[in-house]
């Protein structure tokens, strides 16, 4: 459905590489997540796929149409939600929806079933101007507007950024239901915890793909022993962990600190920490998450 082959994009005179020979493909009906922080190249990739930017190298196709030669066909059929929910602030919810329906040659009624689940959540605001909606509501409206013409492919660029966790969760529930309608969805997000809600994900940083697979396979391939350590004082604990010789990597992870060990010697670590005077120590094996994998893959790369 979506195919990228060695896609490359550079900016400016210094030819700063924003997208570095990226290749992956998304199957029909798949919910695919592009996971990476700001500046990783997610938005550039989205803009290239939606034909808004020309790549400097490589090729890509959406639903069989080449992004350079058949851009019209792509523009006529895909749904796109760019970052920061751009909608018409002066128009009401209903007017926005009507506008985008008409632009695509359809009406709200024609595809109402598709957006019904989402629309009912904002229906009572249908006469309110889009500019006066909350972040979560705007997000839902933007999604409706992108869906109203029953696209075959949906491109959502960071739809949950800046929105509180509750709205984020609701949004992903909506995406799950959309998948059931056989719409192919490509989503980008900086939030690692959202990765598990996708069928497959690609981890991206500094224009390069670090890994592509199902979330399960990615976490399963972690390799090293990962432990979750808890102590009364996180800061002291972290300092101690980084001082330990067997540590490959250690970092805070919510309530616990995660430490990747060179070998599977958790008892040795425990003893060492106790000797170092760490209080309230608890060690158990950690459940590897996408974030852990991401951190490992970033490795000693200069953090940008």
């Amino acid at each position, binding site marked *: 459905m979506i195919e990228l082959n060695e896609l490359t994009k550079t900016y400016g005179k210094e030819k700063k590489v924003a997208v570095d020979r990226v290749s992956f493909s998304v199957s029909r009906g798949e919910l695919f997540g592009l996971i*990476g*922080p*700001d*500046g*990783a190249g997610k938005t550039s990739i989205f803009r290239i796929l939606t034909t808004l930017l020309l790549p400097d190298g490589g090729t890509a196709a959406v639903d069989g149409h080449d992004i350079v030669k058949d851009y019209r066909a792509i523009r006529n059929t895909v749904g796109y939600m760019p970052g920061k929910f751009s909608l018409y602030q002066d128009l009401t919810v209903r007017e926005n929806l009507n506008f985008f329906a008409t632009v695509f040659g359809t009406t709200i009624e024609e595809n109402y079933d598709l957006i019904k689940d989402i629309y009912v959540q904002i229906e009572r605001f249908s006469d309110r101007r889009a500019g006066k*909606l*909350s*972040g*979560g*509501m705007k997000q839902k409206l933007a999604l409706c507007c992108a869906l109203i013409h029953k696209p075959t492919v949906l491109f959502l660029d960071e739809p949950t*950024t*800046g*929105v*509180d*966790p*509750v*709205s984020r*969760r609701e949004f992903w529930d909506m995406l799950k239901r959309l998948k059931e309608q056989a719409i192919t969805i490509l989503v980008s997000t*900086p939030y*690692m915890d959202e990765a598990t809600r996708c069928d497959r994900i690609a981890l991206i*940083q500094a224009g390069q793909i670090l890994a592509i697979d199902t979330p399960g396979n990615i976490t399963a391939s972690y390799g090293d022993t990962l432990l979750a350590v808890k102590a*009364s*004082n*996180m*800061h*002291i604990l*972290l300092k101690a962990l980084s001082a330990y010789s067997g540590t490959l990597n250690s*970092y*805070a*992870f*919510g*309530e616990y600190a995660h430490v990747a060990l060179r070998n599977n010697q958790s008892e040795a670590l425990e003893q060492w920490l106790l000797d170092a005077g760490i*209080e309230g120590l608890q060690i158990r094996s950690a459940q590897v998450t996408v*974030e852990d994998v*991401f*951190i490992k893959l*970033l490795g000693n790369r200069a*953090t*940008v």
Partner: protein
Amino acid sequence: MEKVNPTNANGTSLNPEKETVIEARELTKRFGDFIATNAITLDVYRGEIFGFLGANGAGKTTAMRMLCGLSVPTSGTAIIAGYDVYRQRELIKKHIGYMSQKFSLYDDLTVRENIQFFGGIYGLTNAQIKDKSQELIARLGLEKEAARLVGTLPLGWKQKLAFSVAILHDPRIVFLDEPTGGVDPVTRRQFWDLIYTAADNGVTVFVTTHYMDEAEYCNRISIMVDGRIEALDEPQRLKEQFSAESMEEVFYTLARGARRSD
């Protein structure tokens, strides 16, 4: 994480009697009929890392603006860094630092120029600015970037620089408004290293965030819903109270019933 009694890196207590740097009682802000912040009461202690959570529209931003001395409350009292929020707002501003995601530094000034500018604004002498500037640049490893325009820096470095500039004048309290949005996981943790170090040095950190794991890094957190503080305690105790496995669940339980959103 640390107990309610703040301790420094060695584990000894900083202040047997907890010194409060923020003291708010029934602090309220109305806009006409709309009550944005509804009688919030909280204490924040010196050297604490305090997480200020809430959904969008819950009233967090309004509350923070009052605590920073940027807006006048409608009713209630608040003492920030020892100064009254009604009568001594200018003094409050002098003794706090602030950093938000939307604005932190000037993109078209260099790293050094930004430090110089904010140093000047905070009233530091030229000698002080020079010293601190060198120390800051060395600490962040920005020697090669010191003459670059901030706008050309990657986001992670910008955030770390912004935080360092916000505490350039050694304020009592630093307010951070979603400082780590969109940054990669490694940089985020490096940022929190900076926060920890600052807290160790006695700076109180008041931070809002949407990352629930960051809520765990705080000594105590509060969760605002519909303008009120619905929970205020250590993360561990809150999880016990709500029988939740994670802070996200706690948040979800509380915020789900919210009527207001923005």
